[in-house]
């Protein structure tokens, strides 16, 4: 038996879900995930997105580009989200949002990072954003040649690859969480006509 107050809570919650749904629709969000981002999750999302794009009859080129961006973004989080203190509610977790409108796909990720990593990350993304096509090509080749695979399997190539494949700059934002960590948000847009 449900008591009156439970009813009220439930209604409140259902209203929230409806508002949430409306908000998602308003922002044209087609995929959202919050939680631990593992390799299994990465594979599941990638195939979900593939099936969806197939249904939406996206061109092969758009499908491939979105695929590239999804994999690099998700693998970034699954490799790095565990780097910081485990006590935090953000540990090992992240948020992952895919939205689209008639012109673009937008892939946005968010995960906690240690504050001490902010300056290196900022520099890395700013550097990549400033380069043009042939400079990006040279940097990619240089990084492949000189870079080493980390223990986690990262090659330091993800941002360069995303920038090259989409032709767009990476947008990012750091929201302070505590004196130790910040929430790192990264957003990439992929034109639907390429």
């Amino acid at each position: 038996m449900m008591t009156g107050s439970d009813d009220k809570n439930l209604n409140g919650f259902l209203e929230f879900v409806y508002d949430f749904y409306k908000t998602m629709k308003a922002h044209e969000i087609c995929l959202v995930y919050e939680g631990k981002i593992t390799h299994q999750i990465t594979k599941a999302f990638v195939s979900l997105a593939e099936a969806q794009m197939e249904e939406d009859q996206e061109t092969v080129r758009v499908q491939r580009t979105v695929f590239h961006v999804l994999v690099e973004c998700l693998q970034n989080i699954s490799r790095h989200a565990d780097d910081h203190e485990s006590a935090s509610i953000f540990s090992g977790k992240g948020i992952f949002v895919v939205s689209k409108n008639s012109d673009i796909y937008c892939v946005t990720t968010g995960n906690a990072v240690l504050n001490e990593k902010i300056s290196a990350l900022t520099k890395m993304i700013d550097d990549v954003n400033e380069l043009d096509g042939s400079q990006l090509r040279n940097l990619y080749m240089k990084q492949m040649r000189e870079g080493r695979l980390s223990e986690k399997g990262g090659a330091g190539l993800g941002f360069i690859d995303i920038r090259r494949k989409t032709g767009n700059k990476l947008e990012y934002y750091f929201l302070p969480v505590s004196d130790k960590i910040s929430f790192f948000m990264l957003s990439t847009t992929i034109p639907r006509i390429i």
Partner: protein
Amino acid sequence: MEVLHIEATEDSPDIMLDQEKEIFEISGRSLPEDVNTYYKPVLEWIKEYSKNPNRRTIFKFRFSYFNTASSKVILDILTIFEEMIEEKHDVLVRWYYPVKDEDMLEAGEEYSEMVEVPFEFIAFQHIN
């Protein structure tokens, strides 16, 4: 040498390395959780093969997709071929790319600039 065959999965390519039958091929999609672990036996096999290779080696890469971490390993493989060529062995890379996938063709062209190994580029009809 013993044949090395690793069957494809949804995130890793099919690998066939057979010295006797002269089949050397990596094909499919490559985004394994851990590229180091996945490609370790492959790199070891090729390294061992390079010590006593066939008169001519035609190595086929037939990727439909690979992630950035895999791109680094591909260069490691090509570097072994480069060393073989320095030792006067005959090695040719056949780089297959899905028809109309200019990025995959370009990736192959970039590799061919990075290592002193002859490349041939061949388009193939990709079926998902």
